[in-house]
């Protein structure tokens, strides 16, 4: 369970957001939505302590991640899989090695076992053919899928996805959404999905957090979202719906 309590973050004079509180139950998928630059990625990076808040705390299963020492923080981070907005693949190694990377350092698996696991993970994202390609040879969408394979290879308890479907064609987006749902249902993974793709939100999320005006403007379930009369949220949702329906 992830509890975010009264979080506040600013960079110099820029207040990103304050008073952000929300709970994410085990097995639940929460979507964080909001306009570009509203601080979605920044919020995500607080959950595994890549960023330190000005105020407030983040509890993972009751433990404050910002008060742990580095060794404990790293242990905790290993329970998370993270898909970064820009994929963040290591460009000095190829696709296969990127996915194998966590296995090599955090498990004692043999070379054969690693090969099987990696190819299985790549197959799941439809990229088993590309295993030998260098990062620079992959398209943006392919990178995203490789990064997804890498993030999930250790079967984490928590997954965080930053814009998993942006820059992908509708069909691939749909496959990624299916993967996210599959992960959370079959493996009971607790997920945080940062996105501005409403289609994806409605498909994968249980609840939705809407960041606006430097605070958590709205938080509720997807059912509640369908009936909301929150003005800014409605504007945000309708704006995206045109994109989906055309």
């Amino acid at each position: 369970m992830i509890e975010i309590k009264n979080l506040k973050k600013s960079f110099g004079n820029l207040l990103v957001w304050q008073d952000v509180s929300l709970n994410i139950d085990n097995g639940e998928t929460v979507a964080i939505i909001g306009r570009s630059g509203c601080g979605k990625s920044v919020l995500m990076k607080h959950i595994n302590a890549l960023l330190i808040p000005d105020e407030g705390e983040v509890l993972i299963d009751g433990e404050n991640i910002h008060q742990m020492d580095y060794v404990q923080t790293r242990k905790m981070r290993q329970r998370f899989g993270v898909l970064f907005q820009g994929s963040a693949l290591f460009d000095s190694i190829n696709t296969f090695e990127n996915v194998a990377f966590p296995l090599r350092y955090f498990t004692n698996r043999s070379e054969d076992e690693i090969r099987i696991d990696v190819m299985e993970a790549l197959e799941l994202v439809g990229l088993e053919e590309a295993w030998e390609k260098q990062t620079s040879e992959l398209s943006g969408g392919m990178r995203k899928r490789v990064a997804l394979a890498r993030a999930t290879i250790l079967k984490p308890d928590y997954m965080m996805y930053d814009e998993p479907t942006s820059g992908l064609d509708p069909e691939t987006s749909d496959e990624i959404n299916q993967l996210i749902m599959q992960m959370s249902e079959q493996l009971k993974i607790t997920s945080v999905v940062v996105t501005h793709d409403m289609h994806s939100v409605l498909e994968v999320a249980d609840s939705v957090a809407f960041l606006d005006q430097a605070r958590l403007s709205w938080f509720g379930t997807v059912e509640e979202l369908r009936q909301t009369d929150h003005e800014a949220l409605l504007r945000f949702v309708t704006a995206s719906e045109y994109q989906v329906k055309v």
Partner: protein
Amino acid sequence: MKGLNELGKYSTLLYQALRSSTEIKTYRKNLVSELVKVGVDSLGIIMLTGVFTGAVLTIQTAYQLQLSFIPISTIGSIVSESILIELAAVISSLVLAGKVGARIATELGSMKVSEQIDALESMGFNSVSFLVVPRVLAGLMMFPVLYVVASVFGIGGGLIAGMLTGVIPASEFIKGAQLYFEPWIVLFGFVKSIVFGFVITSVACYKGYYTSGGAEGVGKSTTQATVLGCMYVLLADFLLATLLL
């Protein structure tokens, strides 16, 4: 104020590196490839720099000593001593600030802005141990080796240039070189090269690791790593000379 802040961040990074230098398993593989990149890949340019430094030094020393009544072998003494005590370490470090320092800052800088360092951290890696420790260690280990190479090729270059231009026969050059040779000069050169290796790689790691602002930021870090690397090498050279001579 800003300088103090930077110094604080730099020391913190070094402290983290020192503390995580025990995690050998994390950086073993990277250390090997860094030793190759810092050492083996720099051999060519260091040999070239060495040869030309020695050659020019011989010809110029000969020119400056032309009118005086001192034995010709003095050229050999001056050239070899200058190379061992100062030039081999300093000139090759200035060259390496451009080669090794710039590469390190660019590598780490682009890893930083493309969130690769965040990705390492979020997997539970100690990114300092993974990235900074092997690079600084490679500097500490390889710069002395390159110092030896630069010295050998520098003195060799001087000897050959003296022979080819006819200003000093090889036998006289060698006689002169041996005459005033003292082992502590080489020791001093070693100390210098280790310090310079540390300065260049640690400054470059620091600049790269704290890069911000996209591709432009990477460019800025690279420039700063090179310029500051050179400046601090000269400063350290001065300090070492005052302290140890």
